């Protein structure tokens, strides 16, 4: 294969100060991007600038700082709307992240509209945060949880999905991209089929937003949640997209300031969208900095980021498969830059500990997807996940590291 430069990698690496350090005397190789990506200086500066110049509480003050903070906060909402392809900023609710978004939908839409005897469908690829909120709801209301199984390549079994669908199904919640395996799920098809039986669909976009172009209207998703920290933005902030009609019909999630129109001790009227779902002072600084992260990705070009990552994944997969005893877990036809694997006779944790000593940061374990690990009959995997700032040379470091690790453990 030809390893042509798709992006200006040296320039990009210079944007990420954290990459320029040594671990145990070796240059850091950061391959834990599916857990969280590193932050470009533009994002760090946005945070710094906010606290140095603009900090104020939003939406309430009439002074200049409050106006500036409100303006920037709302500018991110517009940026997220555009990023997701939503019709209106009323449909963009700021959350603390994907987990928060899923819980919001389960607690409000789920509690109000799903009843005993109904069914919810999730998939065998889900992160615990797209399993547990639904289990909690099912237990509370006597709802049945059904699971779309996963085939040997790590793809959803769409035939079984067809069979699971019925009039009883009120909600389907699946991830757009699997965090453990990198599988890109056919969410457009999943959504269309769910709609055909009258079910609404929640998409966990945590792993998709840094790799794929998202268009919630084209997908016809009812809800779509993501976390900023996985797309070069700050931790502790994310957004939930919801179709306006659904959000309007849903009761609020938390009560407090900001989400109300008028409060008397007899009755409270709720604020309009999206504020109805944003009780209390939000994470203003990080919301503001999220816009810088989205702009950063656009400045490189989302298609170029994806092409660079695909090149790394292809190269890494070829190299990994040459290691004796190594088996890739997750060989979907459509996948993002996640290489999950096991090596015969070696516990993933041992690989992770030794690679760390070689300066290579990977993730090992079950990746918060214990049912999926059980499906493959493994304890966990070693996962290398690539971002825009990673290089071919770094992949070579991983491969050399694995050879060394194998020798040490032999």
């Amino acid at each position, binding site marked *: 294969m030809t390893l042509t430069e798709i992006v200006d990698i040296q320039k990009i690496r210079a944007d990420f100060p954290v990459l320029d350090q040594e671990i145990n005397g070796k240059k850091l190789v950061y391959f834990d991007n599916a857990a969280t990506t590193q932050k470009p200086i533009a994002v760090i500066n946005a945070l710094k600038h906010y606290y140095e110049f603009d900090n104020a509480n939003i939406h309430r003050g009439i002074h200049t700082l409050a106006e500036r903070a409100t303006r920037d906060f709302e500018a991110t909402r517009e940026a997220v709307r555009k990023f997701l392809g939503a019709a209106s900023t009323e449909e963009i609710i700021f959350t603390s992240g994907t987990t928060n978004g899923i819980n919001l939908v389960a607690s409000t839409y789920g509690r109000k509209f799903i009843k005993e005897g109904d069914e919810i469908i999730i998939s065998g690829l889900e992160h615990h945060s797209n399993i547990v909120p639904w289990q909690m709801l099912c237990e509370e209301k006597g709802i049945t949880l059904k699971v779309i199984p996963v085939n040997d390549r790590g793809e959803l079994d769409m035939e079984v999905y067809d069979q699971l669908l019925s009039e009883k199904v009120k909600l389907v919640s699946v991830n757009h991209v699997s965090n453990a395996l990198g599988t890109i799920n056919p969410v457009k098809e999943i959504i269309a089929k769910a709609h055909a039986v009258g079910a609404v669909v929640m998409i966990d976009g945590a792993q998709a937003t840094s790799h794929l172009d998202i268009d919630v209207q084209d997908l016809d998703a009812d809800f779509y949640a993501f976390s900023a920290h996985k797309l070069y933005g700050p931790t502790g902030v994310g957004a939930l997209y919801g179709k306006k009609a659904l959000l309007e019909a849903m009761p609020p999630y938390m009560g407090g300031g900001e989400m109300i129109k008028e409060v008397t001790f007899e009755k409270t009227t709720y604020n309009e969208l999206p504020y109805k779902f944003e009780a209390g002072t939000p994470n203003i600084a990080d919301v503001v900095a999220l816009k810088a992260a989205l702009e950063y990705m656009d400045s490189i070009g989302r298609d170029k980021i994806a092409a660079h990552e695909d090149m790394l994944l292809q190269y890494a997969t070829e190299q990994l498969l040459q290691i004796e005893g190594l088996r890739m877990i997750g060989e979907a036809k459509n996948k993002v830059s996640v290489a999950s694997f096991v090596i015969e006779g070696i*516990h993933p*944790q041992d690989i992770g500990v*030794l690679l760390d000593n070689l300066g290579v940061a990977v993730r090992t374990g079950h990746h918060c997807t214990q049912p999926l690990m059980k499906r493959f009959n493994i304890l966990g995997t070693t996962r290398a996940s690539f971002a825009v700032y990673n290089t071919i040379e770094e992949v070579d470091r991983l491969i050399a590291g694995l050879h060394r690790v194998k020798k040490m*453990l032999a």
Partner: protein
Amino acid sequence: MTINEIQDEIIEEFALFDDWADKYEYIIDMGKKLKGLPQDQKTEDNIIKGCQSQVWLNAHKEGDNLIFEADSEAVIVKGLVSMLIRVLSGHSPKEIAESELYFIDQIGMSQHLAQTRSNGLVSMVKQMKNYAIAYQLK
């Protein structure tokens, strides 16, 4: 030997290594040599669950002393487990309960006993001491 004498002995052994890899190879070797537990003793009662790997710990008394046996799926953890057994097993419950483990820090392995490593070792040390306290009261 007392618990502290054994700790000092281990610290001396590790002082010979100036390379991280030598240290780890030594730990891996100890992990491989640890007898571990037969399958029927790897019970739910004995398990100490970490997020990534788990440890099984068994304790029984021989004469006045407490004997520990343990196992793990991950060989580096098993090597560390083997050292913990070498230090603590075969002493009186009182000695074990009152012991202070400093060798792990001294040999540069303290990160493995940090909560974040999620390997069950922290809980294992706690559990060893709990056994000692329980046997002291008997």
